[in-house]
């Protein structure tokens, strides 16, 4: 037996809501050698997680392994009785989930959950397990390794939790660890630290790994081999270097292409008396009761000023929690600013959306990050798009129908989606509908809050292209919020970097190379992974800076 894992002709079936059986994994075969890290990469829904879970002999409810074998160290996980499977889980193969925040039981301490594996399989006495856990915490460069285990999951940061879930996987000394997009939910600055920790621990222990991701650049840093999936089938597989330099399959090339920086012609400024569509000055906003100084208890945005020119785009970046969304919500009037001025189209806006006129509301639209929650699941796409048409423009049935078709056309959706409900669309499609609804109002400015963050790279690139095209046609302006630098760079003329509620730097279009001057901006820009496999090992960041700006 040469390989630790041998998957042969794996088939997984799922039962859809209407009772139909569909094959979501079609005839997949691959191997993982001992100590090797193999990456599974592909768009959302391509079956990455499903395959990863079969390695544990598990299929989510509604799914079922219907054919093939999953040999792990000589045992077929697909056919073992449940009891024996349970005995292997956690001991020989362990799992690091996509969202550690959801995978930790909120009601138990971290230590209890980390050493639970040793308890279940009676691997060692609890005291010993605890010592070993502390060792692992240290190895994963977690702060306060001695005491962090006594906390509850909500008391540590996302990046820390992700590393703790790795400790949870490693405590049973598994031969194989499965990582399911472990860094997707993290900030770039945090991602680096987590990746480094994973890499060193795996190397040291000679542990084999299956690393699931849709981000080629991340995978490039950690995997020995890459397997490209689409629609439940393997498209291509090969050593990391080969795939990056010499991809054969068109889908892989598409993935790679999403990384190439796109040239962007600066938009001509529309000549009017007032070149600015939006000017905000010294805006303060936050949450909680208003204190004596007139500011809220938790202040999330402090003294931010910015200007957006007509027909141009402004990008806002910064780490999670720095106040980007708060700022967008303040501009939109959802969260009234506690101080400062917002001037839109030459006129001062009321802080609260309730006191703005219908016209003002119409001209300034906002598109949210999660298309899922921004679309009413109980309504059809048609109804969703029709409402602003009726509400703002009082359109009658016929005109409305025509306009809906136009809008769908604009966002490149077939008119057949009209009668569907949001749940029947993919993530990218939903985000387009979301955008079409904003367009239906005929706005002048659209606030885009992380509208591509929930999409995978290929789809996100398509959405960005669409935005650019619409801007050319309709002369819109965007404020584009993201924590992904490449996305912002692709579309924006001007970039604002925020940190802890404040604007730290403004990178103007005149600065053609976009070289940041502020140390935080520098850190942020340098943390974006590159396609180069040696990037992570070669990356050197000022530890002083890291300590100052990363709340790990």
């Amino acid at each position: 037996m040469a390989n630790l894992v041998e998957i042969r002709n794996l088939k997984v079936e799922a039962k859809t809501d209407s009772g139909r059986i569909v094959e979501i994994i079609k005839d997949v075969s691959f191997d993982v050698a001992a100590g090797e890290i193999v990456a599974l990469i592909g768009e959302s829904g391509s079956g990455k997680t499903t395959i990863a879970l079969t390695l544990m002999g598990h299929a989510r409810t509604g799914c079922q392994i219907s054919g093939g074998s999953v040999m792990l160290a000589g045992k077929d996980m697909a056919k073992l009785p449940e009891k024996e499977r349970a005995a292997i889980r956690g001991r020989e193969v362990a799992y690091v989930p996509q969202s550690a925040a959801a995978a930790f039981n909120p009601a138990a301490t971290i230590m209890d959950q980390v050493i639970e594996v040793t308890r279940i399989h009676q691997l060692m006495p609890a005291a010993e397990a605890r010592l070993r856990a502390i060792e692992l915490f240290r190895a994963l460069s977690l702060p306060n390794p001695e005491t962090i285990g006594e906390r509850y999951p909500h008391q540590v940061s996302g990046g820390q939790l992700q590393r703790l879930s790795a400790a949870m996987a490693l405590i049973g000394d598994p031969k194989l660890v499965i990582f399911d997009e472990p860094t997707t939910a993290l900030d770039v600055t945090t991602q680096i630290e987590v990746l480094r920790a994973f890499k060193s621990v795996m190397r040291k222990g000679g542990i084999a790994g299956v690393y699931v991701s849709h981000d080629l650049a991340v995978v490039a840093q950690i995997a020995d081999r890459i397997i490209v999936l689409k629609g439940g089938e393997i498209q291509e597989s090969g050593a990391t270097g080969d795939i990056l330099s010499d991809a054969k399959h068109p889908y892989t090339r598409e993935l790679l292409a999403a990384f190439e920086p796109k040239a962007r012609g600066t938009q001509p400024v529309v000549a009017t008396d007032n070149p600015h569509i939006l000017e905000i000055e010294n805006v303060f906003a936050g949450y909680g009761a208003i204190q004596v100084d007139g500011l809220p208890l938790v202040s999330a945005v402090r003294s931010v000023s910015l200007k957006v020119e007509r027909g141009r785009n402004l990008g806002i970046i910064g780490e999670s929690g720095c106040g980007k969304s708060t700022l967008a919500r303040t501009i939109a009037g959802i969260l009234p600013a506690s101080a400062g001025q917002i001037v839109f189209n030459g006129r001062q806006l009321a802080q609260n959306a309730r006191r703005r006129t219908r016209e003002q509301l119409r001209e300034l639209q906002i598109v949210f990050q999660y298309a899922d929650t921004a679309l009413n699941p109980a309504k059809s796409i048609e109804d969703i798009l029709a409402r602003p048409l009726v509400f703002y423009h009082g359109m009658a049935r016929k005109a409305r129908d025509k306009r809906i078709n136009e809008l769908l056309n604009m966002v490149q959706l077939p008119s057949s989606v009209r009668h569907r409900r949001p749940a029947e669309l993919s993530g990218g499609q939903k985000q387009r509908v979301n955008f079409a609804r904003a367009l239906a109002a005929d706005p002048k400015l659209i606030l885009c809050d992380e509208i591509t963050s929930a999409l995978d790279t290929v789809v996100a690139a398509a959405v960005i292209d669409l935005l650019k095209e619409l801007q050319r046609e309709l002369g819109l302006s965007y404020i584009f919020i993201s924590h992904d630098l490449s996305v912002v760079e692709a579309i924006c003329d001007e970039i604002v970097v925020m940190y802890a509620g404040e604007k730290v730097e403004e990178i103007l279009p005149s600065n053609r190379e976009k070289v940041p001057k502020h140390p935080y901006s520098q850190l942020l820009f340098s943390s974006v992974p590159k396609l180069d496999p040696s990037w992570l090992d070669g990356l050197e960041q000022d530890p002083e800076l890291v300590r100052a700006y990363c709340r790990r």
Partner: protein
Amino acid sequence: MNQQVLSLISSRLLIALITLVIVSFAVFFATTMLPGDTASILLGQAATPEAVEGLRKAMHLDEPAILRFLRWLSGLVTGDLGTSYANDMPIGELIGGRFVNTLKLAGVTALFSVPIALTLGITAAMLRGSLYDRIVTIVTIGVISVPEFMVATSAVLLFAVYLKWLPALSLANEVHSLADVLRVYAMPVITLTFVVSAQMIRMTRAAVVETLTTPYVEMALLKGASRGRIVLKHALPNALGPIVNAIALSLSYLLGGVIIVETIFNYPGIAKLMVDAVATRDLPLIQSCAMIFCLGYLVLTTLADIIAILSNPRLR
């Protein structure tokens, strides 16, 4: 325990207090709106104008309602519940023994029904979709659907009249030993267990099923944990809030809703006392009983909320 928990708990207590004040207003004025004159009802068939007048004076019934409300409220606060119109006894004395009886019955019933309901609810959730689960579900629906007096009467006929294992009445005063407790409380407890468990079973099952679909439960499964461990260690602690809430609602039913059981088993509890009080238009007694029920409900639900707050480590 930290500041946040303390402030959450104190705000819950404050809410309960406000509700109680609203209740006391509502109770007092709703009851004074009951038609019929207490004095003439008390005299029944023998009411003559002179007798009625005499009685009204003796009972302060000729004073305005507001005055009586204020007097009553200040009495409540100082623990003086007033005097019964019907028999001139202090309400505290009238209610005292009955209330203890009600608490006893509720306690014994809770002792039986809560573990039964939890066990059935949890096991049904664990074996979700199985034959066992379906049987439990159907049986609980069936049990919910049978009127209480039907359950009680059937139980009496079976256990008391035909089998003669248990007494048909539940005479709380005859309890001297543990064996007596079992004998005397068996019938009402059987009936009430039927009545209150079904709801608790449904709620427990739903709450546990909900947590069983969470990622951390899947994670536990992937750690190789057994079904029992998954449910007890991972699902249950997180389902505690809704379960405790369901238990609180059921127990509050045991305080005030058991009128039918009290009637059939002739159990001298507080619900029957209130029904009597309505019949005799004994306003102070009605008001006190109503306040006790509301207080019981509020104490239980507030307690459940506090337990839910305390059991949520995010708030610790």
